[in-house]
């Protein structure tokens, strides 16, 4: 009684499947995962997608000064381009009735986002130009300026996802999303 119906359904699907499939347009071209690698720049909060390489805050300072500081300001505090926003500081400003200063340190829930965003979009005038070493190093520098890691802490594919961000538990789901 429990098996008859599924078997019947499968049998009928098998009968009609070839004809139905022939009707469906399929214009996608198969591609091997290895051939997607150059485009696959997504990094998950668990670190999935992080490349090999490594960097520290001490190594990152010179890169920051050369590539980031013109817009984001010295030590990430006073951006000269308004839209770039402060990268550092603002701790405690999420508290009720305060004017929030949302920085990497005060607001961002995951350190992996820093690597992901820097690699895809920064530096603004020449995005995707930094090496993985440089991105780890400059990420470490910004985390260090926020007092989250030490200046000699190595950031790599293993350590970056383990960085505990101060506002990691600051987010809750919107209650009125469609089901």
């Amino acid at each position: 009684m429990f098996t008859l119906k599924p078997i019947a359904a499968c049998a009928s699907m098998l009968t009609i499947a070839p004809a139905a499939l022939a009707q469906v347009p399929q214009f996608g071209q198969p591609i091997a995962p290895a051939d997607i690698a150059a485009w696959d720049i997504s990094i998950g909060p668990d670190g999935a997608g992080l490349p090999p390489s490594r960097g520290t805050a001490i190594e990152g300072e010179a890169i920051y000064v050369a590539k980031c500081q013109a817009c984001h300001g010295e030590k990430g505090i006073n951006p000269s381009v308004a839209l770039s926003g402060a990268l550092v500081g603002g701790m405690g400003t999420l508290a009720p009735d305060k004017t929030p200063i949302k920085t990497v340190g005060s607001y961002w829930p995951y350190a992996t986002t820093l690597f992901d965003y820097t690699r895809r979009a920064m530096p603004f005038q020449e995005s995707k130009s930094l090496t993985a070493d440089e991105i780890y190093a400059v990420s470490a520098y910004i985390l260090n300026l926020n007092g989250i890691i030490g200046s000699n802490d190595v950031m790599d594919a293993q350590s970056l996802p383990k960085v505990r961000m101060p506002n990691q538990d600051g987010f809750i789901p919107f209650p009125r999303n469609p089901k």
Partner: protein
Amino acid sequence: MFRKTHTEPVDPAAGNGILSRRIFLEGAVVVGATGAGLSRGSAEPLTVQPWMKVPGAGFAGYGQPSPFESKVVKVFPPPPNPPGVGASRTPLHMLEGMITPSGLHFERSHSGVPEIDPDQHRLVIHGLVKRPLVFTVEALSRYPMQSRIAFIECGGNSLALNAPQAQPLNVAATHGLMGCSEWTGVRLSTLLDEAGIEPEARWVIAEGADAAAMSRSIPLTKAMDDALLCLYQNGERVRPSNGYPVRLLLPGFEGNMNVKWLRRLKLTAGPAMTKDETSKYTILLKNEKAWQFVFPMEVKSVITRPSPGLALRGPGFYEISGLAWSGNGSIRQVDVSADGGRSWAPAALQGPILPKAPVRFRAAWQWNGGPAVLQSRATDEMGMVQPTRAQFANERGLRGIYHYNAIASWRIDEKGEASNVYA
């Protein structure tokens, strides 16, 4: 054929001169209403204008608006921000109907507008799929297509109305990050089915081919529901500023998620937690918590005329015209008030009324020349009612920046000038 008209007076429907919407529904004539302050003396004698005496211009490959309409343009801030970064705003107060002309559709870009050669553009679908696939634009163009009229609203639209004091802003500045097009393209579900979805997939990470490679995580349920890969906007190929050659449309969802210049869709078990879904587009509440993944743009409306910058010319009859929309479905009702929300009357809704598309509403108003505060309040098919500013602030505070959808108020002074106020 003549329409049947009514000659009886149109009754007041709400305080301070709001008249019955019958005038729109039945073509009733307003008896006793005076002209809009214009001289009722005799008009000037008519003369034959010069453009009737010589042949006009020849053909143009692509038509342009009249040079007399040169002020109807998008507005965007001057430097210091780099060019193409930030947003340009639709001049909603200068437009009518429900469709936004493609050249006036607002744009939000994070690293300028890329100039993409469609022959070299590729869209890849990979991750938790059985068959990773690459599509050319030509290949996408071969699938059966679908059209729908839908709004896109930036999550940051009306951000300025969070300010503690009302600023001197017009509708472009307060509501101009919303536009509506007829979008045509291929259902995303068609392509995901072709790639074969692995059972553990729950999210789709969408990524653009701009210099910022702008990226957002989208629930697979939405991708399989009504997501559209748009190749056409208002009948022509999507404009570069709106995602040429292919953009994602997620009807009703936050604008930022409708990724432009779409180049990659990666199916995953969890969201990527990109910059734009963590540090931006999250809503800091009154306490220290923030709402994350706020998908629908909730019910909202705005009076586009009269509105700041469009002065009334003396007491008399005016049409109040505006737009109402909801990311949760169709607009069911729009009420208007001329006394700051003390009394309301239903506006006429201009068809077609479509889900997740703006509705043009109209109300008749007899301005007596005194102070007035005009408001509109929309209700959608879910029964959700647009909140007052106080109700909005009571729920979430005013630190959230994004998804501001409270009732807007335009004060009319004795000179007929309109201004943005909190009422």
